[in-house]
């Protein structure tokens, strides 16, 4: 074991360096390689990072072992920001998710991006994305987290606007970046405060015992600042608007953004700074509230979406809400657990959706699908698993993690039981809309356009689907109420914290039962409603206002456009006018004034020497008088 720890200390930097090397290699040489090679190299880079991480993780698997830090080099020493890797259970879990799921997405992309003119460029971005996320999760100080944080934002910008010739894609990429920047604003303020009180950014000093430095108000303030950051990156209310638009990128990129990387960063940040949140009940409640509201709100919107990826996008937001509820209930392990399971099944869902879109000739409207299960059996059945997993049907992955969060929230009591209630409602809605999604796409009669020829995707794409489906089915076992393996594994990362544990005994069974019943009810209602055209139409008529509102996302984008962007643009316009008219006008006005004064004084310069002479003598006179007065 000790050898493996040494291995981890010595070689863990490879986890970041390998994808980075893939990025550098493909960046300079990728475009000269034959098509699949760039993708293969990128996949290998990511995969080997996974292998290294897996081997390095072995000593920690049993739990109870503390993290090690590996310093690489100085960055900004005066603020305690070094390039330093923290290899502890939390970062191990994140790293394995990012590299593992990431590798499968890489592999899948080799098939999906086949024939794209910028094939190799896509893989450079993908590798860079993985690198950035790994920097984020492996960082041992807030500044380095922020480095990864911004870098994933940048990569998401590059990937979302990958097809930049489409104005929609370019716009979506920019929107993602800018909205994320609003969250970053919170992050920066949080970091500024951390530095102001701790004098360093290093986890070693900040997170060990923040209660010895911070007072109640500032603990809350820093918590809220980090919450704002998480709201931006993890697409919570009110900054979730970028995520649905992020669909404009290639579908596997969406999978990467939504499942393994990027959006989970916010949850990770809160979990990582658990020691600070632990000090402030207020901050935790704010987190839980944001999460619960987002989960519910996004689930409602997801019900009305007709875009195959749109449903998934809002479901991501909704599931992220669950994770935020988890960390907001101080059940940090539960939140991370859901992050992991969600990473697996959401990657699966997106890749499946990509497979469908791919085979349908870039058709994304679910109203033009249906009955694809027969044409695409592998995709269809893996999607069935994923749907049941996200719906929370036991014993699939989603059930365990979701139940853990809800149970913890209920167990925390008081206000959190209200949060729990919202969670249950969301769970029912989730089961419903995901079933609707599955039924519309894979069951029923074909509603394809005449020129569509759906077919099963190539093996390079279905292999990741199968692997992920297996994962989605079984990954829940790592943390069941009977054997809290994952929680135990993570515990060293949350040692000094009052972790909220799930309920035990009878109550646990009751809560699990309620959730299960809710999920089954949702699935059943969804299946029954959408499997039958008549009932479907009746339902859609009955709930038409809700559904059409949900389809438009309840006009939130328009509201922001009108109430936020437009006033901002007007202010900017006004500033520019002010600048050219008033500020510069004043300068030019002054210049004009001088010129005018010159013109006014021009006649004095008559050109007659004798006139000047008069002035000369008069001046001399004045001088002499002055001398006399001074008494020389």
């Amino acid at each position: 074991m000790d050898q493996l720890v040494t291995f981890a200390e010595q070689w863990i930097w490879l986890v970041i360096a390998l994808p980075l090397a893939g990025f550098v290699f493909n960046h300079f040489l990728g475009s000269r390689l034959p098509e699949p090679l760039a993708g293969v190299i990128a996949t290998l880079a990511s995969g080997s990072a996974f292998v290294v991480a897996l081997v390095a993780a072995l000593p920690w698997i049993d739990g109870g072992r503390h993290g090690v830090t590996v310093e690489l080099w100085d960055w900004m020493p005066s603020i305690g920001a070094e390039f330093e890797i923290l290899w502890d259970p939390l970062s191990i879990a994140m790293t394995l998710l990012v590299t593992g799921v990431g590798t499968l997405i890489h592999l899948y992309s080799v098939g999906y991006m086949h024939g794209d003119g910028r094939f190799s460029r896509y893989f450079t971005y993908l590798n860079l994305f993985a690198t950035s996320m790994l920097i984020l999760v492996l960082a041992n100080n807030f500044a380095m987290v922020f480095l990864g944080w911004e870098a994933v934002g940048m990569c998401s910008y590059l990937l979302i606007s990958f097809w930049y010739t489409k104005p929609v894609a370019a716009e979506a990429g920019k929107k993602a970046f800018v909205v994320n920047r609003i969250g970053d604003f919170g992050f920066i303020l949080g970091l500024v405060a951390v530095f102001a009180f701790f004098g360093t950014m290093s986890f070693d000093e900040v997170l060990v015992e923040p209660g010895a430095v911070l007072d109640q108000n500032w603990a809350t303030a820093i918590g809220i600042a980090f919450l704002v950051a998480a709201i931006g990156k993890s697409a919570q209310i009110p900054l979730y608007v970028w995520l649905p638009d992020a669909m404009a990128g290639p579908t596997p990129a969406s999978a990467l953004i939504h499942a393994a990387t990027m959006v989970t960063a916010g949850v990770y940040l809160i979990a990582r700074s658990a020691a600070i949140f632990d000090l402030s009940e207020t901050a935790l409640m704010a987190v839980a509230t944001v999460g619960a509201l987002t989960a519910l709100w996004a689930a409602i919107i997801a019900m009305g979406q007709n875009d195959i990826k749109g449903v998934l996008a809002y479901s991501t937001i909704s599931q992220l809400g669950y994770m935020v509820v988890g960390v907001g209930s101080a059940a940090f392990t539960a939140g991370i657990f859901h992050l992991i399971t969600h990473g697996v099944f959401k990657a699966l869902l997106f890749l499946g959706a990509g497979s469908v879109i791919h085979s349908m000739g870039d058709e994304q409207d679910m109203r033009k699908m249906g009955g694809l299960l027969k044409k695409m059996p592998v995709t269809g059945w893996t999607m069935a698993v994923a749907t049941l997993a996200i719906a929370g049907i036991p014993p699939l992955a989603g059930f365990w993690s979701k139940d853990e969060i809800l149970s913890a929230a209920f167990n925390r009591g008081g206000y959190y039981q209200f949060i729990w209630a919202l969670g249950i409602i969301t769970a029912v809605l989730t089961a419903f809309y995901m079933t609707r999604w599955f039924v519309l796409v894979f069951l029923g009669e074909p509603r394809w356009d005449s020129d569509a020829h759906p077919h099963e995707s190539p093996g390079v794409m279905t292999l990741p689907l199968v692997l992920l489906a297996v994962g989605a089915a079984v990954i829940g076992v790592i943390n069941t109420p009977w054997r809290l393996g994952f929680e135990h594994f993570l515990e060293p990362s949350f040692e000094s914290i009052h972790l909220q544990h799930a309920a035990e005994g009878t109550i646990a069974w009751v809560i699990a039962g309620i959730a299960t019943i809710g999920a089954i009810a949702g699935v059943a209602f969804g299946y029954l409603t959408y499997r039958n055209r008549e009932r479907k139409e009746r339902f859609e008529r009955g709930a038409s206002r809700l559904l059409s509102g949900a389809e438009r996302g309840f006009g939130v984008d328009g509201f922001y456009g009108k109430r936020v962007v437009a006033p901002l643009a007007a202010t900017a316009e006004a500033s520019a006018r002010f600048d050219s008219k008033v500020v510069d006008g004043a300068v030019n006005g002054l210049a004009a004034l001088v010129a005018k004064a010159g013109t006014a004084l021009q006649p004095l310069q008559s050109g007659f020497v004798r006139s000047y002479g008069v002035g000369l003598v008069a001046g001399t006179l004045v001088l002499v008088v002055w001398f006399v007065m001074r008494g020389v």
Partner: protein
Amino acid sequence: MTVGPAWYMLLAAGLFVIGIAGVLTRRNALIMFMSIELMLNAVNLTFIAAGTALGDLSGQVAVFFVLVVAAAEVVVGLAIVVAVYRRRGTANVDELSEMSG
């Protein structure tokens, strides 16, 4: 009876004022020039008188320097007058007002 320096000063002042009047009222460049020379001479007179009165020979030395400067000035000034006359056919300064603003 000796004449005190004050009288010399008065005489010099008179010459100086006359010189000013010449510069300001005459428009022949040569006469203006001579008026300036007159003013310089007035100043020279004060140097001499003061030097004598104070028993200091430096007053006379100062006159030498004024003289040299006056000579140099005359040389250049007259050259200018001649040059202008050759070009413009006049020594009337009122006609030379191109520098009017």
